[in-house]
C-alpha cells in the first residue's frame, strides 16, 4: 500500500477552528486525523503541505520510520506547528493501519487494557450559581468527575486576597453540588507564574480533596513545576504544553509531576503518546490526556486510554452537544461518565465533508489577558 496524497480541512464551529487531515492510499483506504488547533492554524496546514512529499509514495504502515524521518530532516527542534502537523498525520496513519487490519486502533497498540474509558467534564462559569447548576446537571447525566478553574475570570484585576477567598467559595460551591463521592480537579492553565501564589492557592483549595491541580506553573521551566510539587499535598497534573517524548521524559525525570496530560493532537500522535505513557509507567505516573477539541480528538484519546496500563482519566467537554459534533458523521457520546470502546476498524470516525465545506475557517485567537496596570497576562 502506498500513500497517494494528504488533504487538509479547516473549518469553524462552536467558537473555534478545527484542522482535519485525510491521508489517501492507492488501495482505497483513507485515514483521518486531526492536528491541534494551536491558533495559527494556517501555518499548520502549510506545514502539512510542505511535509506531504515526504509521505506520498511511502508505505503508510511504516509509521515510526515516516515520523522519525520527518522529524530528523527538520533538524531544529520542532515547535507547535510541526508537532501538531505530525500528530495529525500520525493519527491518520494509525487509522489506515487499523482499517487495513480490520481492527480498532487500540488493538494494534496492545489493547484493550480496559473495558471503558472514564472522563471528567469541564465546568465553567463566573458566578457560584452558574458553577453549581452546571455541576448538578452533569451529575444527573451520570458524570462522576469534574474540572473547573479555581479562580474567577477577573482574578488578574482583583486583589490576590480576594482571589483566594473567591477560590475557597468556588470550591465549596462545586463540592456541595457534586457531593463528596465525586472527583474534582482544577486547572490553573499556566496563568499564575508566581510560585508563592500557586502554593497559597493550593493550600486554600486542598481541603476540598482534589483529584489534581493542573498547570500551576508555566510550562517552559520544568524546575518551577518540580518546586511546586514538593510543596503540594495534592496531585500535580501538567504536560499539555509539551511536545515529544524527550520533553516529557525531562519533566518526569525532574520529579515534577504526578499525572501527565499529553494532547494526542500535538504531543506527536498516538505512537508518541504510547512512548510517553511507557516512560510514565516506569516513573509510577498516570496519564490523563488533554482533550479540548472535539469528537475525533476524543476518539484518539479513547484509543490511547485503551492501549496503556497507567491511564487515569480523559478530559471531555460535552462536545456531542455542540455544533462541532457535525464535523464527524458518527454520533458519539459517553454513557454514565464513560466512553465505550469503539468497535469499528481504525479510529472509527469519518469526516462530514458537506458540513466542513459549509463552515469555512474564521479569524481566531484566544484573546489577550491583561493585568490591572495594562501589562499582558498569561492565558
Amino acid at each position: 500500500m502506498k500513500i497517494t496524497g494528504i488533504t487538509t480541512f479547516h473549518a469553524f464551529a462552536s467558537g473555534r477552528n478545527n484542522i482535519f487531515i485525510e491521508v489517501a492510499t492507492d488501495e482505497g483506504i483513507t485515514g483521518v486525523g486531526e492536528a491541534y488547533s494551536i491558533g495559527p492554524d494556517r501555518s499548520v496546514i502549510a506545514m502539512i503541505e510542505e511535509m506531504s512529499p515526504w509521505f506520498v509514495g511511502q508505505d503508510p504502515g511504516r509509521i515510526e520510520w515516516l515520523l522519525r524521518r520527518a522529524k530528523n530532516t527538520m533538524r531544529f527542534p520542532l515547535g507547535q506547528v510541526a508537532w501538531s502537523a505530525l500528530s495529525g498525520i500520525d493519527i491518520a496513519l494509525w487509522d489506515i493501519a487499523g482499517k487495513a487490519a480490520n481492527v480498532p486502533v487500540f488493538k494494534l497498540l496492545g489493547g484493550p487494557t480496559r473495558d471503558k474509558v472514564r472522563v471528567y467534564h469541564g465546568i465553567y462559569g463566573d458566578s457560584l450559581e452558574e458553577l453549581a447548576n452546571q455541576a448538578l446537571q452533569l451529575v444527573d447525566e451520570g458524570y462522576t468527575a469534574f474540572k473547573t478553574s479555581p479562580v474567577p475570570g477577573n482574578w488578574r484585576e482583583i486583589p490576590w486576597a480576594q482571589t483566594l477567598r473567591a477560590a475557597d467559595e468556588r470550591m465549596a460551591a462545586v463540592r456541595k453540588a457534586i457531593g463528596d463521592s465525586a472527583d474534582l480537579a482544577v486547572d490553573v492553565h499556566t496563568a499564575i507564574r508566581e510560585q508563592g501564589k500557586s502554593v497559597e492557592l493550593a493550600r486554600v483549595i486542598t481541603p476540598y480533596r482534589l483529584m489534581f491541580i493542573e498547570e500551576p506553573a508555566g510550562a517552559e521551566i520544568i524546575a518551577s513545576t518540580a518546586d511546586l510539587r514538593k510543596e503540594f499535598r495534592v496531585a500535580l497534573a501538567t504536560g499539555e504544553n509539551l511536545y515529544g517524548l524527550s520533553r516529557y521524559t525531562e519533566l518526569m525525570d525532574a520529579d515534577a509531576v504526578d499525572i501527565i496530560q499529553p494532547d494526542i493532537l500535538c504531543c506527536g500522535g498516538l505512537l508518541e503518546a504510547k512512548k510517553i505513557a511507557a516512560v510514565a509507567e516506569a516513573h509510577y505516573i498516570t496519564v490523563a490526556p488533554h482533550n479540548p477539541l472535539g469528537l475525533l480528538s476524543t476518539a484518539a484519546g479513547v484509543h490511547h486510554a485503551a492501549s496503556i496500563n497507567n491511564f487515569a482519566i480523559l478530559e471531555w467537554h460535552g462536545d456531542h452537544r455542540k455544533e462541532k459534533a457535525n464535523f464527524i458523521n458518527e454520533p458519539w457520546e459517553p454513557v454514565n461518565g464513560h466512553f465505550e470502546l469503539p468497535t469499528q476498524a481504525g479510529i472509527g470516525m469519518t469526516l462530514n465533508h458537506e458540513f466542513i465545506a459549509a463552515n469555512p475557517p474564521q479569524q481566531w485567537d484566544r484573546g489577550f489577558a491583561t493585568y490591572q496596570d495594562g501589562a499582558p497576562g498569561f492565558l
Partner: protein
Amino acid sequence: MKITNIECLVAADDKGGNLVYVRTNTDAGIYGIGEVYHVGPDAGSPHWVAYFEEQLIGRDPTEIERNWALCYQGARFPLGSSGMAALSAIDQSLWDITGKAFDKPVYELMGGAVRDKIRAYHGIHGATAAELADDARKYVDQGFAGLKASPVSPNWRTMLWNDVLTDSNARFKAIRAAVGDDIDVGFDAHAAIFEPIRVLELTDALMEYRPWFMEEPIRMENRHEMGRLRGEMPCPVATGECLYTKFELWDLVREGGVDILQPDVCIVGGITEMRKIAFMAEGHDLMIAPHNPMGPVATRANLHIDAATNNFLVQEYRDPSPTEAVSVTPVAKPIDGYFELPEGPGLGIDIVDSEMTSRPYKASWHRGDHVNPDGSIAYI
C-alpha cells in the same frame, strides 16, 4: 478468540542445559510460541507457566498489555528470575498470536519497520590470545563487522591483577592484528569483577585498541555504583541483561549507569516490556542492544523489536546449538553481519515437537563454580 491452554515444553540440549518454550493455544486454532530464559532451575519454569496459565485461560490473547498486567500485578511480590522468564515467554506468544490473527509480522504491530536490515555481532572466545584472534578472524570472514569478547583470560581469577592487565592488552592487540581497525570489538566483563576501580584499570589498559563498549563492568545489584563508574569510564557502558522490567532499567538510567541498554526479551518481561524500555531509552537518547544468549525463538522475537525500534544499535547473536537448530523452524542466520527483516505472520517461527519430545528433561543446568585461589566463591 480465547486462550484454551498454555504448554511449557522442556527438552534437554544435547550439548548440556535445556531448551524451554511455551505454546499458547486458542479456541480459534491459532497458537503462539515464546522462549523462556534458561535461568538454571529449568524444572521450575513449567510451574510458573502453569500458574500464569490458570489466570489466562478464557482471556483474549490479543489483549497483550492487560494480560501482562494481570500476571505481573497479580503476583504482588516481585516475580524473580523464573517468574519473569515465564511471563516473558508467554508475552512473546501473545504477540505471535496477535500477529497471526491480524496477518502481520509482529514488527508491523509496532509502527512498522524503521530499517531495512538488522545488524548483528557475534561472540568470540579463546583461552589464549592466538585462539581468540583465530576466532575473531573466523567470524569476520563470515561477514560480521561486530564482535564481542571477554576482556580477560578465562583463568584470570588465578592470575595476579597486574598480569591480567598485561594479558588483556595482549589479547585485544591480537584481535586487532587479526581483523584490523575497522571491526567493532566490544568487551563483556560479565558482572564478574567485584571492585569498580579494577574495571577502570582494565578498560584503561584496553583503550589504545578502541573498545566498542564495556559490558556489565561490575555487578548489577548496585545501580548507584554503576552510575558512579560510568562517569569515570573512558568508553561506553553496556548493561541491563540482569535487570527485570522497565522499573529496574529506569532505575539504572536514573543513576546514569548506562550508555547501551541490553534488556533480554526472555526475562525482562517479553516484547511488551522491551518496547517500553526502548521508549524510555529513546527519551534519554540512549541506545538498546538486546541481550540474546538464548535460542532461535528469542532471536526471532528480538528481530521484530529491532526492526521497529528507532534507537536500536546492534543485535547480539550466537550460532544455535545443534539441538536448538532443529527444535524450531525456520532458523534465521545473519548474512554478511546482517539479518533480513523477519517474515510473519506473527513471529514467523514454529516449534518442531518431535525434536523436543525425543529429548526429555534430565537435569537442571549449572553454570559451574568459580572459585578464587583461596577457595572463596567468585562471581560468574
